[in-house]
């Protein structure tokens, strides 16, 4: 069996699992994929790994968004507002990745993610209401969502994780969206954020080394994403938030672990 075929049979199932779980929790799967890529490719540069991760996140987010569109769960007004707010941040994040020392930034962000994971586990639904940011008191929610999405896009592009894992808790806790609407709307925003970051990586010439890996992972991810979207309608909001909290804690521990 050729090495490419072996790689195909390893990467497609990994992509499938990441696609299903990422769509279920409203994240693009980048936060789970980056640790996997770091273990599989110890000699690749962080820029190459984040470019692969963000390209796979785009395929996953696109596939999941189509599934959520059919279910009618996306808040399009909020989604378009947050997308327009986030695009420049996604570009800035890719440019900044070359300046910030990862050895300092990763553990600090790991502590932040771990704290967020513990907070969400302790009170999965909090005081969240089932409403859109465009509802009553929507003006302050929309402004907070717009500015928050701009910063989240920058931070997630910088880390190469897509951003759903930060965006979903922000939509649920900060903007009081229901978990189901938050995961679907986050996925919609994520599609455009990941596409913007990937195009920036391509223009900077950091993507050409990872095209094969990206395509193999993308095949798995695009098969797994509809399964995740279908599972999300069968699983309660509390379980979705707990799954997200688990994923956050996992990524946080991974980033802290890199410090030692």
């Amino acid at each position, binding site marked *: 069996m050729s090495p490419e075929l072996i790689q195909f049979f390893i990467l497609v199932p990994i992509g499938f699992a990441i696609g299903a779980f990422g769509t279920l929790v409203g994240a693009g799967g980048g936060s789970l994929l980056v640790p996997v890529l770091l273990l599989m490719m110890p000699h690749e540069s962080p820029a190459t790994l984040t470019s692969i991760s963000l390209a796979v996140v785009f395929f996953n987010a696109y596939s999941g968004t189509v599934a959520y569109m059919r279910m009618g769960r996306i808040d399009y*007004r909020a989604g*378009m*507002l947050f997308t*327009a*707010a986030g695009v*420049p*941040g996604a570009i*800035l*994040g890719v*440019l*900044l990745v070359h*300046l910030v020392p990862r050895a300092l930034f990763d553990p600090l962000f790991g502590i932040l993610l771990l704290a967020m994971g513990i907070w969400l586990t302790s009170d999965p639904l909090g005081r969240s209401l089932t409403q859109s940011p465009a509802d009553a008191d929507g*003006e302050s929610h*929309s*402004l907070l969502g*717009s*500015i*928050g*999405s*701009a*910063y989240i*896009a*920058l931070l997630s592009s910088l880390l190469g994780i897509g951003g759903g894992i930060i965006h979903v808790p922000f939509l649920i806790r900060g903007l009081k969206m229901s978990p189901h609407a938050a995961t679907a709307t986050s996925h919609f925003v994520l599609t455009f954020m990941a596409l913007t970051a990937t195009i920036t990586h391509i223009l900077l010439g950091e993507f050409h080394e990872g095209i094969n890996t990206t395509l193999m992972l993308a095949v798995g991810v695009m098969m797994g994403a509809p399964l995740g979207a279908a599972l999300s309608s069968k699983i309660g909001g509390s379980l979705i938030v707990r799954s997200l909290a688990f994923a956050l804690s996992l990524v946080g521990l991974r980033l802290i672990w890199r410090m030692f």
Partner: protein
Amino acid sequence: MNPTLLVVAALIFPALWGWFVYWQFERLRPRRPTGASTAPPPVESGGFIDFQI
């Protein structure tokens, strides 16, 4: 590109851009004309209903 400029832009620009996008979205949002009534339209002639049955 100047690193200091990039870091300053990363700290300030998202807030300004987020506010600008929100402002544009609010401007473009369709609004009900001022003074328009939310009450249902009056019943036209011929629409009499006798409730005293």
